């Protein structure tokens, strides 16, 4: 009997983990699904749409907090069956690269764009009354914002801009393309026409100006803007300790395949929380002071006193019903064996 040669090494070797996130449809409650059959071995720097590459991450940890309880019977009390206690899983890691999305995910609540302020406006910690918006004209695309020749001189190469509609007193999720916040009452946001642009993920960096428009370095995440949406300069990002909104995103983590086999972890729904250590200790002890605090940032020493700041992120995995069998699950771990690797 002859056997075909198979690759002896069946150990996934990796040195880094890469994070990809995709927005959920918050109104419908539907996640973005990563189908390993369709996209599994995608080039790591070219994720399939709408997945967004958020860079290499550090200290990646997955926690299964779901425990099983044996059902016992007989004089010996031997286990005869098992059942699951409440489903609970979390994931934690450090974003090593900072950007709008990384900050929003690590912060967990509404993430604010600090709009360029009117010099006479009152000071506000997330930005005061902004300089008035200018409005996009028809013909704009995700990479080109057509403003007309009169408005273009107000912008320069290098400017960050927010591109989104005026807030029209609606109730519900706001933000083009990605739900950035939930407004339950227009009064809460001062009925501010600029509110959506204060939180939107629809941002761009001006790479070039033309006679009539702004060319962006990266496409807008919300796609081509409709005529009439507002454009304002953004000077910084702010997240806050507090806030009532929970970000919720679909996530994919890929262990870089050094030895040929790729491992992916897909969480259809992730919602920010604090670290397992912190919450576990809080629940196990009556004194909150004994819990290890969740550190928002880590100072990764480079050459003391120089260090790199990493954004600590922790997420609660939310349930998803797998349509193939109706099971409620929170995470999918997929493995793509290296070519000619053994099956077992």
């Amino acid at each position, binding site marked *: 009997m002859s056997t075909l040669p198979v690759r002896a090494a069946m150990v996934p070797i990796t040195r880094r983990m890469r994070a990809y996130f995709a927005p959920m449809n918050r109104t419908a409650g539907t996640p973005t699904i990563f189908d390993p059959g369709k996209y599994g071995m995608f080039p790591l*720097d070219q994720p399939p749409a709408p997945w967004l590459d958020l860079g290499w991450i*550090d200290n990646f940890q997955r926690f299964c907090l779901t425990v099983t309880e044996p059902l016992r019977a007989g004089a010996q009390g031997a286990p005869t069956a098992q059942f699951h206690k409440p489903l609970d899983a979390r994931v934690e890691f450090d974003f*090593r690269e900072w950007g709008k999305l990384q900050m929003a995910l690590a912060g967990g609540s509404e993430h604010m764009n600090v709009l360029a302020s009117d010099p006479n406006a009152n000071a506000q910690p997330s930005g005061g009354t902004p300089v008035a918006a200018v409005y996009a004209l028809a013909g704009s695309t995700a990479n080109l914002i057509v403003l007309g020749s009169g408005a273009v001189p107000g912008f320069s190469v290098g400017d960050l801009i927010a591109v989104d509609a005026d807030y029209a007193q609606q109730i519900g999720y706001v933000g083009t393309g990605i739900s950035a916040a939930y407004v339950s009452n227009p009064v809460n946001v001062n009925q501010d026409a600029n509110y959506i642009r204060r939180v939107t993920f629809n941002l761009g960096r001006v790479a070039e100006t033309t006679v009539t428009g702004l060319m962006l370095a990266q496409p807008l995440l919300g796609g081509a803007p409709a005529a009439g949406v507002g454009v304002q300069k953004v000077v910084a990002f702010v997240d806050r300790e507090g806030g009532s909104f929970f970000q919720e995103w679909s996530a994919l983590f890929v262990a870089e395949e050094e030895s040929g086999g790729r491992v992916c972890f897909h969480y259809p729904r992730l919602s920010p929380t604090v670290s397992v250590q912190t919450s576990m200790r809080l629940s196990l002890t009556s004194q909150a002071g004994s819990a290890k605090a969740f550190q928002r940032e880590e100072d*990764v020493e*480079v*050459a003391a006193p*120089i260090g790199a700041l990493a954004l600590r992120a922790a997420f609660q995995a939310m349930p998803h019903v797998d349509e193939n069998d109706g099971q409620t699950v929170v995470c999918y771990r997929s493995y793509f064996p290296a070519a000619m690797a053994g099956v077992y």
Partner: protein
Amino acid sequence: MQFTKDSFYMALQTRLAALNPQQTVTLSGATRPAVIVAENELVIPIVPLPNAFYIEWGAAQVAARQTGSRELMEMECVISYHTFGTVESGVDRGRTLAALDTELLTICQPQHTSKRDYTQAPSVDVGTNIVWTAPVLGKVAGSEAPPNQALPRGTEGVRLERVVSLKVLFFPEVTFL
């Protein structure tokens, strides 16, 4: 990597020109601020000039615990300088060396500068900064005097030299996929 080396050199040279415009050297017929990158000069066996800062580059590697599409790298840098003092007797050579120490510490502040592509004119900002550690001033060594066991550093010699080391941190132009 070349952008990093050029940017560090240009930062020190520009700062020295602003701090002490008289601190110049003449090399290859051109007078310029007294900051010299040895590897950029003509290969001729000349003795290094006194009262000038010579930059030499050493090993480079990815900084520990750094990751990302642009992993932070560190490169060793040595800056050496020597003096004979300003008078023929050389009695102020220690003070002159101290003045050079002060100048170097001053032009190393702030400990960062923008990384620019100096292969183009005008130079182009390539989007990140380079950062360096605080300079470590090595021991003073004297030379050009008869050996004297009572003065093991040789500082009775007319030539006083200092070697300063630091690390320059930068994001390379290479994207790590």
